[in-house]
């Protein structure tokens, strides 16, 4: 088996290419986020034009760097360490872009985002000049956007597996002591000490032992694990190998969710390449350590992210969570002692063993050293994945990186960490990014890295309906408290949203929330979080929905009606918009509003295309007047089945 030094030597040509020693390097960040906005087309166009014009430059794919808002991005590297990032380079821009950076050799042009390294020409902004860049502490992400995630040589050229090499000459106990000393807490959002978990497995009497990576990332609105898998997959494999060595495991599974086909493809490729280089298999790096790895593809199930559900899913079964104990360290995959960690936990462990615990603790807080990835989405100006040291506040992340609410709107709520973790009001912005800070304020937790921001156009009650529906749909169905409780929640919220709220509903919510606590797993136990949070922090809004049948955001379909002005003057003034709305509306409603004499009654679909096309004349009004009777029959049918 090759030694680490031999592998490093093999990667020397890759290193020259990354550093653009011999010719300029044009690198297009390719991952799910950038492909969505055409980055593959940019890459193809660059390749074709550089070839046809015979320009001397490497055109390569790299991983994405998290800055979704700037995609498609091209990084131009030149000898001497100059690296300059350009944003929004669409395929149509490629001829002009190449003319600028390669033919004329310019650094500044209309696509310029900032210089990452070297000494850029005067007038060229540095990435550090952007507050949304400099407020980050980019460590786990430092290779994202630099290396081709499909090339193990690129990874090796930038230090991958150095942490493994270092660990393999240490004792198991010393590796665990170092990871424990870093205070690394599980990045699924549970923040359970990773070093301690590894020690449970190490000292578990079972043999053989198994390492499992939870790459199910089921929380909608979070894509931090996807970043690691798509943009730096070898960091994940390295972390798992380190854990396996420390805990004495001989086999490993990476369980990737179905919704991440590219992450799956890249992780599979990385595993294959690691086998080819002797980084998986027998006598790894020439040490007395062997490890086999398998990548498993999920098939669309949220509770399969719960560790016992995940284990069941790997074992040929429906992924139903089990009652613990036994914990995985005592009995996991196929009854073997197992360790389950999130992708981010392994990624951090690899970083710690590459750079040492002292360096790791340089940033962050006393109780939470280090950094964590966060994806910001929802009502923000800049969506993307960013890396923060613990202790930065949510408000800084939101204002500086996210750019705050869209123009003309204000912050209303934060939804951290997926459907089980509820929703927080204004004070969320003051919270330090640390699990303790969230819990001290009564929030369920910080979560696994997804932050969805809501502004004043969002309705919290409507989000409750959506999340409870999600949790009902994804309940494994084993306990009646969970599948029945979530179903009942959905029915009541939907009734309220249709104008049938009752005084007793708050009491019912409390009863169901108390009952759900007795579910088998966290799925049911935390299912009421968002409702409980809403009763605490958005009580006025909830009561408005129940007692005044009014939705202040104008979102809940049953409480609002769209009314188009029908007077002649308005119609004449916006004749064109009326015509377009009437033509696009799927029913006859808008044609009637536009003045056509049409026969027949078709219920409005409530799709609101009219308000979009005719904002001047279509207004949201309350569907109920004070004193109107409650609607007789309220459909609480699940909307999606």
């Amino acid at each position, binding site marked *: 088996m090759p030694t680490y030094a031999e592998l490093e030597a093999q990667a020397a040509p890759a290193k020259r290419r990354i550093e653009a020693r011999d010719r300029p390097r044009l690198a297009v960040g390719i991952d799910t*986020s950038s492909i969505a906005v055409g980055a593959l087309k940019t890459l193809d166009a660059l390749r074709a034009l550089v070839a046809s014009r015979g320009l001397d430059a490497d055109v390569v794919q790299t991983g994405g760097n998290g800055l979704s808002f700037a995609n498609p991005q091209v990084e131009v590297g030149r000898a001497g360490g100059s690296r300059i990032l350009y944003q929004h380079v669409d395929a149509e821009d490629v001829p002009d872009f190449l003319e600028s950076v390669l033919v004329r050799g310019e650094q500044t042009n209309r696509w310029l985002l900032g210089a990452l390294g070297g000494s850029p020409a005067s007038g060229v902004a540095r990435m550090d000049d952007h507050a949304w860049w400099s407020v980050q502490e980019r460590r786990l992400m430092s290779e994202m956007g630099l290396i081709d995630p499909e090339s193990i040589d690129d990874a090796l050229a930038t230090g991958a597996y150095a942490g493994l090499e270092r660990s393999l000459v240490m004792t198991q106990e010393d590796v665990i002591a170092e990871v424990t000393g870093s205070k690394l807490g599980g990045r699924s959002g549970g923040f359970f000490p990773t070093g301690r978990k590894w020690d449970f497995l190490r000292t578990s009497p079972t043999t053989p032992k198994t390492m499992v990576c939870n790459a199910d990332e089921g929380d909608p609105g979070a894509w931090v694990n*996807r970043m690691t898998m798509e943009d730096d997959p070898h960091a994940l494999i390295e972390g798992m190998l380190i854990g396996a060595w420390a805990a004495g495991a001989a086999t490993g599974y990476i369980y990737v969710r179905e919704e991440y086909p590219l992450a799956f493809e890249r992780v599979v490729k990385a595993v294959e390449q690691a086998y080819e280089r002797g980084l998986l298999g027998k006598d790894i790096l020439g040490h007395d350590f062997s490890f086999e790895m398998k990548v*498993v593809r999920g*098939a*669309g199930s949220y509770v399969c992210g719960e560790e016992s559900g995940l284990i069941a899913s790997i074992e040929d079964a429906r992924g139903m969570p089990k009652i613990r104990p036994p914990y995985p360290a005592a009995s996991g995959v196929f009854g073997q002692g197992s360790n389950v960690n999130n992708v981010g936990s392994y990624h951090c462990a690899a970083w710690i063993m590459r750079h040492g615990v002292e360096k790791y603790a340089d940033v962050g807080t006393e109780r939470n050293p280090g950094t964590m990835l966060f994806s910001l989405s929802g009502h923000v100006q800049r969506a993307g994945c960013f890396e923060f040291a613990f202790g930065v506040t949510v408000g800084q992340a939101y204002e500086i990186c996210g750019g705050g609410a869209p123009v003309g709107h204000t912050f209303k709520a934060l939804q951290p960490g997926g459907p089980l973790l509820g929703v927080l009001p204004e004070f969320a912005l003051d919270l330090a990014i640390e699990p303790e800070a969230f819990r001290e304020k009564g929030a369920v937790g910080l979560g696994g890295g997804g932050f969805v921001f809501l502004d004043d156009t969002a309705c919290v009650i409507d989000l409750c309906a959506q999340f409870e529906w999600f949790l009902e749909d994804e309940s494994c169905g084993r306990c009646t408290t969970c599948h029945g409780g979530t179903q009942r929640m959905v029915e009541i919220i939907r009734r309220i949203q249709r104008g049938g709220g009752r005084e007793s509903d708050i009491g019912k919510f409390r009863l169901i929330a108390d009952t759900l606590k007795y579910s088998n797993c966290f799925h049911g136990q935390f299912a009421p979080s968002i409702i409980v949070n809403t009763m605490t922090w958005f009580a006025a809004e909830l009561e408005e929905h129940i007692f005044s049948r009014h939705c202040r955001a104008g979102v809940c379909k049953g409480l609002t009606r769209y009314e188009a002005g029908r007077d002649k003057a308005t119609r004449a003034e916006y004749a064109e918009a009326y015509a377009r709305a009437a033509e696009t509306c799927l029913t006859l409603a808008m044609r009637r509003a536009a003045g056509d004499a049409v026969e027949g009654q078709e219920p409005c679909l409530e*799709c609101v295309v009219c308000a979009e096309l005719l904002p001047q004349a279509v207004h949201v009004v309350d569907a109920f007047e004070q004193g109107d009777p409650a609607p007789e029959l309220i459909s609480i049918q699940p909307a999606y089945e």
Partner: protein
Amino acid sequence: MTSFYGASARNEATLEVRQILEGLAPGEGDLLEALHRVQHRYGYIPQAAIPGVAQHLRLPESRVYGAVTYYSEFRQTPPPETKISWCSGPACYIKGSENLRLVLEGLLACGMGENTPDNRLGLHLGQCNGTCDNAPQVWVDGEVVGPLTPSKTVELVRRLQAGDQP
């Protein structure tokens, strides 16, 4: 389950399924992979394939059927020619994805998980994949189309109905 398909159809299906499952073995946690392969081959999991999978992996048929119905990405009916996945995630939701759903279901006259009668277009309930900067969005055969508004969704569906690109 034999009665429904008849013995010969069942045997034929079992034979073909055997080929698809080559290399997979009982007791090694290969059920998900087996079902993925069947779905890759047929576009869905035909009921006639279940006995073959069960035999190959030496699992009870009920266990295989249980897995097929447990996971939302396994289909039991043929997929449409063009699949429109509607994102049900929160970033899309708070930006009005519900309105898009009403347009999609209204224009195609089918619900989530269903196809138009001619099987050309169908709706699928999608989960957030972290391309939330394009919210609200749909995926047409896996390709992101967004951010959408109700009127853009109307136009998108009309284009797809006419056989054009998204």
